[in-house]
């Protein structure tokens, strides 16, 4: 379980490897908030290497989305696998996020 952060043009791209759960959600949150503090505005979280997100992981995504919006920024999600897509649909979380099928599409959408 780890997070890697890199810059693609103006967009901060975060890769979530493994799971996003109660045990590591604070780490993700801190990393994104640090970037936000540095003045970054555009964020993309890529879940292509993510198998599972638990409820506290979802909570952190919502909380980050709010904080980024408050600073005038934007958050996009990309590459949710079928299970995660279903989870977002079932819980209506898809209405709270802009979700793209691929990283390229997400980057283009900013």
């Amino acid at each position, binding site marked *: 379980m780890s997070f890697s952060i890199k810059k693609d043009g103006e967009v901060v791209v975060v890769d979530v490897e493994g799971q996003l759960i*109660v045990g590591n959600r604070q780490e993700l949150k801190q990393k994104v908030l640090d970037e936000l503090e540095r003045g970054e505005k555009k964020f993309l979280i890529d879940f292509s290497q993510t198998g599972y997100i*638990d*409820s*506290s992981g*979802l*909570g*952190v995504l*919502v*909380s980050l989305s709010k904080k980024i919006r408050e600073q005038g920024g934007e958050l996009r999600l990309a590459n949710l696998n079928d299970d995660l897509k279903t*989870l977002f*649909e*079932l*819980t*209506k*979380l898809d*209405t*709270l996020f802009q979700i793209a099928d691929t990283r390229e599409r997400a980057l283009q959408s900013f």
Partner: protein
Amino acid sequence: MIDLARVLDAFRAATDCEASVWTQPNPNAPPSLGAGTANAPTVHHFPSVADGEQTIATPAGDALVAAVPGPRRAWLALGPCTSQSIALRACMTFLLPVVGQYLQSALEVEHAANELAERYEEINLLYTISEILGRTVALDEAARTILSEVSETVGARRGSVLVFDRATNSLHPVAALGAPLADVHPISADDACSVSARAFRAQHLVLAEDGEMLCPEEAQYRRGAMLSVPIMWTAPAPRGAEPLGVVNLSDRRSGQSFTAGDQKLIAAIATQIGTAIQNTRLVRASVEQQRLAHEMQLAHELQMKLLPDDDIVAPEAIVAARVVPAESVGGDFYNLFRLSGGRTGVMIGDVSGHGYQAALIMALSMSASAIHAQSTTDPGEMLASLVGTMREELATTEMFISAFYAVIDPAANQMHFANTGHPHAFMLPHGQEFERLAATDPPLGMDERPPLTARRGWSAGRDLLVLFTDGVTDARNPAGERLGEEKVLQTIRAHRDEDPREILEHVVAVLDEHTEDAPRRDDLTMVLVRS
């Protein structure tokens, strides 16, 4: 000197001369008679070894006196004799070494006896300390008693026991002798001038002579030389020996320095104190752990008590419900409400996260939903009021609640529901397939918009409402595979015409069979309703 008296008597019998031995154990008092024949004269003149033999006059005739060579101050007096033919000087030459040898042996025996008595005292001290440590877990009390016992044995009038506190990196007094404990100050483990700190750091005893290493913090229990011995405890490998504190002793009654024997004895006792300190800590930790486990158990029972009995909505509705928290307390819950007009309110919720914080939000949701359910029969409105009550708590804790709330009205053959992010809500209409009652809004606390209410037809006494949390579908077997939603629905489908309580038992059996003894990662809740 009984044996010596016999020798002198035998001498007299052989020579007809009186004989006596005088000793001076105390240099400030005059010599006194140690042993002598019946008519031996009193001697007043005591020559030194260098003076050799000297003749003294007594009323019964001349006598010869000489100092006995050896460590003890003693004199041998021979004469007077009834026979004039006895050569007293020759007798003196013969007898003086014999008496000297005797006195030397007697002195050695005396030393050995003293030594034995001291060892006995030390062994006795070790026994006493073992006994003190064996019957108490109160470290301060044990340290106080041990300090006074050990001081008594080595003849020290002042001392202290200091224990290391990792949090403050200092040595804290737990017992003091010769000063009130309240006046004794802690010492930093890095202190440069303190004898205690140096012994602690070096993990080796330090003997500071009078006037050496004077530190104001140690002045209360130090006079003259001070012996500081580290209290060591040997942990199982790889940690090995570590210092836990120090024992200090000072101000010896005899005024002499501490001997190698004293140092060895105190080092042995310090090791025993180390074991006692460690025991005390382990006992405390164990008691604390038991207390926590007990409190968790109480919290679990309290949380279970918050959940309603299945039969509070009977006979209008038959309900089978179960919650199994992953930890002692959790964030899953359900609630049942008896409403006007024969209607029944059914709610299931899952607070994000686990543990105490989730349990508190759960308890709050339980009581708030009970109030709001009575004020409206519209599920969307009820959930909107609920989130209104809890918005601040949810925002500050960054938690949210996925909730489903339905109001079943069998008289009107209708069910109204609102679903805020709850993934597993189904209706099983009689003779038909499952219909998913999908979420109409994201979980409570994530979105500002009021939840929507949806409506379905309801066949009274025949249709089944099926609600469960993701703890059920995500339950893993020992190989890490999830149970999955379909397996749960399949089981219910197979037993659809049975009583909801029986259907629940079938699902629980399937769940148990799947998970075997794998640990639960999430709370797990299921509610089945027929109305």
